[in-house]
């Protein structure tokens, strides 16, 4: 019973390399292609009719749009809407990655820390570069909050800088660890079912208990998949708000 084996990166087409780097298609990259195709198919198909009164599929696309737009506007203000395509893409990618990982025998793209770290570092770099580009050095006023007594201001500034620098760490690990832990737990209980069922007739009755636990865990994982996609997007919007409106 090895719960880690499911996260192994397998090479699908072991032929491509570019110089010294191996860029062959892995199962992770294949699933990312699948995610892109599915998200594009959903939205291009749903909005192709462009009806004024939306049908069912177009309503789905419009509701998702409204949901992400509300998240962006409420945390980053109306100026935040210039980041809306990026935030929307991020939300749909993470959501579909999390949900597709729940299909049995599939691979969860966001359970690889390199994927979530890339997304989180991208958000961090966008925040820093956009903040410095738009506001110049006034962006660094983010680390000097108002209304703090002068005596402890140096300490507070250091703490603020450190907490800003750990943002990509917590941002990426939150999504990665949630997906990893969920799938490991599912695999462990699946192992229990197999082990109990192997004990003979009595084992089959006992094996129903871990199986019921798998069902409950799967429901929890469904909630966590959607919730973590939303949390990733919400935190992205909050960090972007720091770039658009620096200073407390």
């Amino acid at each position, binding site marked *: 019973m090895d719960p*880690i084996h499911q996260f192994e990166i397998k090479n699908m087409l072991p032929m491509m390399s570019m110089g010294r780097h191996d860029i062959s298609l892995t199962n992770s990259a294949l699933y990312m292609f699948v995610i892109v195709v599915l998200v594009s198919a959903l939205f291009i198909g749903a909005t192709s009719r462009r009806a004024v009164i939306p049908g069912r599929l177009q309503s789905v696309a419009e509701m998702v749009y409204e949901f992400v737009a509300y998240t962006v506007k409420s945390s980053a203000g109306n100026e935040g809407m210039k980041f809306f395509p990026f935030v929307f893409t991020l939300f749909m990618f993470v959501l579909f990655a999390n949900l597709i990982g729940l299909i049995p025998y599939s691979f969860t793209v966001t359970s690889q820390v390199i994927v979530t770290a890339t997304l989180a570092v991208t958000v961090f770099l966008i925040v820093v570069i956009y903040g410095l580009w738009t506001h110049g050095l006034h962006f660094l006023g983010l680390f000097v909050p108002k209304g703090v007594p002068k005596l402890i201001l140096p300490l507070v500034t250091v703490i603020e800088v450190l907490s800003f620098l750990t943002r990509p760490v*917590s941002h990426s*690990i*939150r999504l*990665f*660890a*949630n997906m*990893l*832990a969920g799938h*490991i737990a599912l695999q462990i209980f699946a192992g229990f079912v197999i082990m109990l069922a192997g004990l003979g007739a009595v084992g089959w009755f006992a094996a129903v208990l871990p199986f019921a636990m798998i069902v409950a865990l799967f429901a929890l994982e469904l909630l966590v998949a959607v*919730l*973590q996609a*939303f*949390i990733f997007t*919400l935190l992205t919007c909050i960090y972007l708000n720091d770039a658009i409106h620096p200073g407390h």
Partner: protein
Amino acid sequence: MDAIALTTAAKYIGAGIACIGMGGAGIGVGLIFANYIAGSLRNPSAAQGQYLNLMVGFAIVEALGIFSFVVALLLLFYFK
């Protein structure tokens, strides 16, 4: 005891100790939901408006418990 067996034993003990951190996260999640339930019983009409805050708070607190689980996994499966 040779060095490799000692390291392996220490890894397993460390992984077990790391899991104690999830107790704090459990208390935190309980606090969030307890306050939501208490608040929504006092003011039921305002409960639906705070549902989003509930979910955000739960996700952020649960993440900390899962960070400690990740430390345990790191010890078990990453370090030699």
